[in-house]
């Protein structure tokens, strides 16, 4: 434990700047212990003798891969299946029925932006599968995007612990869509192959990505510092297709700046993209 609480204040300040720059999130002064425990674990995994050696390496060589791993380790959060359940009820009861007449015979792409270990996009895929009889003339694609991280690798593998599958996931869904593998549960291939995961810096250029009819960016926006929040709104504006829906957390809102979205919420936290591109923010800027 003695070498855990060893981070120099100057390094902590540098890490705060790095996190703000790469992910747009401001670490509080009281996060020191969390920072040190998570980074100590990462240092061991990366083969460093201790946390100090890893941080020295990070700031002396400026290796991008290590910087991203440091930031994702700091920001990793526990997620649960069907988390913020009201949002999934909205997806099934409001969002998809709204999109159905517009995309009949076509494809609805659902994106989880900041998907972490994948529970959100797997939950969306399960919900849609359960409702397939309601939308027989719609095809669906599911995409999860996040910074490269261990969590994202677990999402790709569809592997969850005994504890994770018991948080938010009804038992009937567990036995329908997962199979046991030792102590873990793994998403069955039929569901897993329907979901594509992409490593991507959430605040970076989105040209490798497409546009999507549903973009889930729930409970992240309020964590972003001011400039990063503006940048993220520009990104979300471009990711959501015309008539598509942006889903924030059910207690989140865009406030006065609605960018390309309708000012009136479709439902709490849900905004539909305007047919006309009249966003106050230039698509080319920033």
């Amino acid at each position, binding site marked *: 434990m003695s070498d855990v609480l060893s981070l120099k204040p100057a390094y902590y300040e540098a890490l705060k700047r790095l996190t703000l720059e790469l992910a747009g999130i401001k670490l509080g002064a009281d996060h020191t212990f969390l920072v040190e425990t998570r980074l100590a674990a990462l240092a061991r995994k990366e083969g460093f003798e201790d946390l100090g050696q890893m941080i020295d390496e990070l700031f002396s060589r400026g290796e991008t891969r290590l910087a991203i791993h440091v930031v994702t380790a700091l920001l990793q959060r526990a997620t649960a299946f069907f988390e913020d359940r009201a949002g999934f009820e909205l997806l099934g009861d409001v969002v998809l029925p709204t999109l159905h007449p517009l995309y009949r015979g076509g494809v609805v792409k659902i994106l989880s932006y900041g998907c972490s270990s994948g529970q959100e996009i797997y939950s969306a895929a399960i919900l849609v599968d359960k409702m397939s009889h309601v939308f027989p003339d719609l095809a669906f694609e599911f995409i999860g995007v996040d910074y490269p991280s261990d969590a994202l690798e677990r999402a790709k593998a569809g592997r969850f612990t*005994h504890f994770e599958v*018991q948080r938010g996931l009804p038992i009937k869904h567990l036995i329908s869509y997962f199979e046991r593998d030792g102590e873990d549960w793994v998403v069955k291939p039929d569901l897993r192959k329907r979901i594509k995961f992409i490593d991507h810096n959430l605040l970076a250029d989105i040209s490798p990505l497409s546009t999507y009819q549903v973009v889930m960016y729930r409970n992240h926006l309020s964590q972003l510092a001011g400039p990063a929040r503006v940048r993220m709104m520009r990104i979300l504006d471009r990711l959501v297709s015309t008539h598509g829906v942006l889903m924030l957390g059910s207690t989140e809102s865009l406030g006065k700046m609605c960018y390309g979205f309708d000012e009136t919420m479709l439902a709490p936290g849900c905004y539909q993209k305007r047919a006309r591109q009249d966003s106050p923010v230039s698509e080319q800027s920033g």
Partner: protein
Amino acid sequence: MARRSKTCLVVDDSKMIRRVACRILREMQFEPVEAGNGQEAMDMCEAHMPDAILLDWNMPVMDGLSFLKALRGQPGGDKPVVLFCTAERDVVKISEALDAGADEYIMKPFDSDILVSKFALVGLDINAPDRQAALR
């Protein structure tokens, strides 16, 4: 007027599991009561039907599955929400429990987040804010 606490019968032959479960249930504003096996639980249900039952599988005298089948055949026995809480993880066993009338299924070991989540799934999360306050 004070809202009546919901009662939850914890049926497990392990005293330690009962103690842990009852502590969490109290934090969730339930009024827990305990039974050490299925027969004891059945006697308690005949005297007073609880709102929810947290049910172990493997117990002496009467096991959880036999208890559940007997309960669901009793007058008023369809009312309690029943959550199995057992070390059994086999999909066949889980299906058997659901077929017998279980509403949810918890695999041991569990923690308070799992218990809260599972009770929410069966519509018994009414005191979640109170619980959050209790845990702060």
